[in-house]
């Protein structure tokens, strides 16, 4: 049993009271409480007394007694804190240049990083908005013939239904078949290039919300069509189109739904969907047996994502044997595999032939991410460097504080807090910067980036984490090392160790320059490659070539010769031709037989373009053997094939001359090669020039190519339009210029080059800021040394050399390290192109030399000033 007079009130309750009570009132009220408690113990026993005590303490917890939130009861700490703030602020103000360099460098670094991160996030966000995103897979094919293996994005008509029949885990399938259609309603008549036949399941599988109409029935009937909002507005204005008729390719379709516009971050988009059954109704048989007639993109909805996909892939050959028949019985071609691509991977996957929609490049993302990381690292190194360097100037402050009795703990708090504070400020500035800059960035790149996307807890958390880490790293040295010195040692002010960890700083500076040089060299190489692409000999003339669509209109096809004559008679027009595909579009891949050197017929899938007689001369394509198509030979209309040099190589013919006269069988037509053309880049430069067949086939022609000679292009276009309206009053005048279409193919690279160049410059800027700060620090430190050297007769140039020497050495080391890094990164990126630059070693000379020059300039500005100063000024005070 405790003695009553010794009874103590509960420590916990008392602690609570201490926590909230105003410090001025604490002592006497606590005394009152204890007095009452002691009396209660005597009168009512410990237990009751304890309760009453608790009750009293609770009742005291009210405004008037509690301390204010702002004024800490640890008043001493509070004042210390205030003082720390004051000193931190004075330090910033005293060295404005350093403060600006420090904060601006970090803010720019963080802003650049966030901007790139947003861009990368956007690229990674493709197709993820679908509710079933993880369960949708695209069926693609690896098609094998006698002499090649083709990787196609296409699949064939029966695949989707067969998968759904065979596997209960395949919940649904959607097939899309692309068509370019002539759509008209009232006065609006336009070729729509983004039109697809789609199975009615499209709205079940994908998350394309319908604004009007019923998603379950919208595409179940033949001749029904769903428009996107934009299309609905284009053809029906503000009226609702649902239930109305729309003319497509001369036939009337019923509009059964309006879909929201497809989000920009989709690997393919559509403007118009026509019910697939419209096509199936006429092609029942095809749909069952045409296992090798490709032309649709098939998507499967799987029950259990990866798991189901793995199961399907494992059984693929059995599946094919069951539905297509055994491989051994296959007639001339067979599928090696039918790979299943997860929906969300399609956008960044290596493109196959016949892709739908646009594709990003994972390599570009790697490059951008590395730049983002580089910038962040450079900015971070800077910050750590400058902060530690400057902290070493505050040794006197530290020792004075210590002499006055400040604990080491407090010093640690002071320095860490200070560096954390600055890193926070910079982070906030960085965020502010990107909020302000975002619209410009979007304008400039045409990207739909949205700052609001950054407003996620994990972004804030990682930013916070980063600034804490950075503040901590930068503060560690002053906090733990400086605070540990004996004050006397500091006042003695001799040892070198007082000037901070010089080696660490050197490593960081070298690291920064490794990154900077890598960026400069990388940027130069990217530019080189892009120059190569834009200047590469395409092998045909793309300038002033107007492409006029007629989408295979049979009237134009039948009267082609007179149409071409009428158009080429326009002054300013040189010549006119027609073709199935123009250069830049992927030609059709057609199964054919070709006679080999030894006379054997071999099956192959070969790119084929259907052209007219004037196509080859109109595009200025050179003949290397034989002749081009001619109207003088009537047989040319059906039996003549022109091939390119790649085909000669591919089929192993000894020379272009020996190729002429070889037999070709295609779609039942027997003919022979009449000529060989020089290779021309009929596809984008991302692809190699593949073997090509050209063949005359009037009913496959879809677009006119009009070569303009006049420099007054608008005037000629106006004349062509007038003539076109007279010739084909029913058809729209829809044209584009081939060189612009071609440029569009390299949009991704052009974006990349813009982004890379800007952010590389920023990175170099930040690195130079750091160098500027460090040099001025180093000069300041050696102020007296410079003075003495000058008194002893050193020249200005020798002093400048002295100071710049230590940095230049670092940059040279950095250059040596940067070369392999750049080489590695860039050669990865170059893999994307068929036409590649050789990595020019001169680039590294430029990058290294440029960096040395810039750094030297920065260093000189400061060191010359120091070297020119009168030594008296520096030596006067001791």
């Amino acid at each position: 049993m405790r003695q009553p007079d010794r009874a103590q009130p509960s420590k916990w309750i008392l602690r609570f009271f201490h926590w909230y009570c105003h410090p001025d009132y604490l002592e006497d009220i606590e005394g009152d409480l204890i007095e009452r408690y002691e009396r209660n113990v005597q009168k009512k026993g410990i237990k009751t007394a304890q309760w009453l005590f608790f009750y009293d303490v609770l009742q005291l917890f009210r405004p008037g007694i509690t301390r204010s939130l702002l004024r800490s009861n640890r008043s001493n700490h509070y004042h210390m804190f205030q003082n720390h703030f004051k000193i931190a602020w004075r330090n910033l103000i005293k060295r404005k240049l350093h403060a600006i360099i420090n904060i601006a460098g970090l803010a720019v670094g963080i802003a650049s990083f966030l901007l790139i991160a947003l861009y990368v996030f956007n690229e990674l966000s493709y197709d993820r908005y679908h509710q079933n995103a993880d369960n949708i897979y695209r069926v693609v094919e690896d098609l094998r013939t006698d002499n090649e293996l083709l990787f196609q994005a296409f699949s064939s008509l029966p695949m989707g239904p067969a998968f759904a029949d065979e596997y209960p885990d395949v919940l649904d399938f959607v097939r899309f078949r692309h068509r370019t259609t002539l759509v008209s309603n009232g006065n609006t008549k336009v070729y729509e290039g983004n039109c697809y036949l789609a199975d009615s399941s499209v709205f079940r599988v994908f998350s394309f919300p319908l604004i009007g109409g019923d998603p379950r029935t919208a595409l179940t009937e033949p001749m029904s069509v769903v428009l996107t909002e934009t299309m609905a507005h284009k053809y029906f204005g503000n009226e609702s189109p649902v239930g109305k008729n729309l003319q497509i390719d001369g036939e009337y379709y019923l509009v059964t739904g309006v879909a929201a516009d497809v989000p920009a971050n989709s690997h393919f988009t559509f403007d118009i969907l026509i019910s697939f059954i419209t096509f199936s109704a006429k092609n029942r048989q095809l749909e069952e047996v045409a296992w090798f007639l490709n032309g649709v993109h098939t998507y499967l909805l799987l029950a259990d994502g990866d798991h189901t996909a793995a199961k399907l892939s494992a059984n693929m050959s059995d599946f094919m044997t069951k539905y297509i028949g055994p491989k051994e019985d296959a007639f001339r071609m067979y599928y090696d595999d039918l790979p299943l691509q997860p929906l969300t991977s399609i956008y960044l996957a290596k493109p196959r032939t016949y892709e739908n929609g646009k594709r990003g490049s994972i390599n570009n993302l790697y490059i951008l991410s590395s730049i983002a990381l580089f910038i962040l690292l450079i900015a971070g190194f800077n910050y750590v460097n400058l902060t530690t360097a400057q902290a070493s100037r505050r040794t006197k402050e530290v020792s004075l504080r210590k002499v006055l009795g400040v604990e080491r703990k407090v010093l640690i708090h002071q320095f860490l807090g200070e560096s954390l504070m600055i890193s926070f400020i910079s982070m906030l500035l960085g965020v502010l910067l990107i909020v302000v800059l975002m619209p410009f960035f979007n304008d400039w790149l045409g990207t739909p980036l949205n700052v609001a996307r950054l407003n996620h807890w994990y972004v804030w958390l990682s930013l916070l984490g980063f600034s804490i880490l950075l503040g901590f790293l930068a503060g560690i040295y002053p906090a733990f090392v400086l605070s540990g010195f004996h004050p006397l040692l500091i006042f003695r002010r001799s040892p070198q160790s007082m000037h901070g960890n010089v080696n660490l700083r050197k490593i960081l500076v070298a690291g920064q320059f490794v990154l900077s040089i890598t960026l400069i060299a990388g940027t130069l190489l990217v530019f080189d490659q892009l120059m190569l692409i834009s200047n590469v000999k395409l092998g045909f003339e793309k300038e002033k070539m107007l492409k006029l669509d007629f989408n295979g209109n049979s009237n134009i096809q039948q009267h082609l010769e007179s149409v071409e004559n009428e158009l080429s008679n326009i002054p300013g027009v040189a010549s006119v031709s027609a073709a199935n595909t123009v250069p830049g579009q992927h030609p059709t891949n057609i199964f054919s037989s070709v006679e080999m050197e030894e006379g054997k017929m071999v099956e192959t899938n070969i790119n084929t373009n259907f052209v007219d007689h004037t196509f080859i001369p109109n595009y200025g394509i050179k003949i290397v053997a034989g002749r081009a198509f001619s109207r003088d030979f009537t047989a040319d209309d059906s039996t003549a094939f022109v091939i390119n040099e790649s085909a000669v190589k591919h089929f192993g013919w000894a020379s272009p001359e020996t190729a002429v006269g070889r037999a070709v069988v295609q779609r039942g037509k027997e003919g022979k090669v009449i000529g060989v053309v020089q290779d021309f880049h009929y596809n984008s430069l991302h692809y190699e020039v593949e073997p090509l067949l050209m063949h005359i086939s009037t009913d496959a022609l879809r677009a006119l190519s009009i070569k303009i000679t006049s420099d007054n292009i608008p005037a000629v276009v106006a004349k062509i339009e007038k003539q076109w309206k007279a010739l084909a009053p029913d058809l729209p005048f829809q044209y584009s210029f081939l060189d612009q279409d071609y440029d569009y193919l390299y949009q991704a690279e052009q974006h990349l080059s813009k982004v890379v160049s800007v952010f590389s410059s920023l990175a170099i800027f930040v690195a130079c800021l750091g160098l500027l700060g460090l040099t001025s620090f180093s000069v300041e430190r050696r102020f007296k040394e410079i003075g003495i050297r000058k008194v002893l007769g050193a020249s200005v140039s020798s002093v400048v050399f002295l100071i710049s020497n230590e940095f230049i050495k670092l940059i040279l080391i950095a250059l040596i390290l940067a070369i392999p890094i750049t080489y590695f990164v860039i050669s990865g990126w170059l893999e994307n192109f068929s036409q590649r630059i050789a990595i020019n070693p001169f680039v590294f000379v430029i990058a290294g030399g440029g960096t040395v020059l810039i750094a030297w300039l920065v260093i000189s500005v400061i060191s010359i000033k120091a070297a020119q100063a009168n030594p008296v000024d520096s030596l006067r005070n001791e």
Partner: protein
Amino acid sequence: MSKHHLGEFEEIVMLTVAILHGNAYGIAIVDEMESRLNRKVSIGSLQTVLRRLEKKGYLTSEFGEATQLRGGKRKRFFTVTNFGKQALEEAKDQRLALWNAIPAIAFSNP
């Protein structure tokens, strides 16, 4: 309105402090009030009022000597200032004036 305004509890606390003359610290005031007025007073409400009155200048306080009791904590003794005295007198005068103004007939019949 006069410039001083005392709440009822405030007035009682001040009067008690005056009664205890020089010996008015927390618990003593509580005890005094409890015994004289027969009402429960919590330390919380008392202390709030004491501090408020001190801030207004009606009361002043100083620490006493530390003793073995009360866990070694000093007592804070309150005294009424002149200003406080004025306020109390004014309150009393106002009350009296009101009492005097009541016509005799009003309270004559229960």
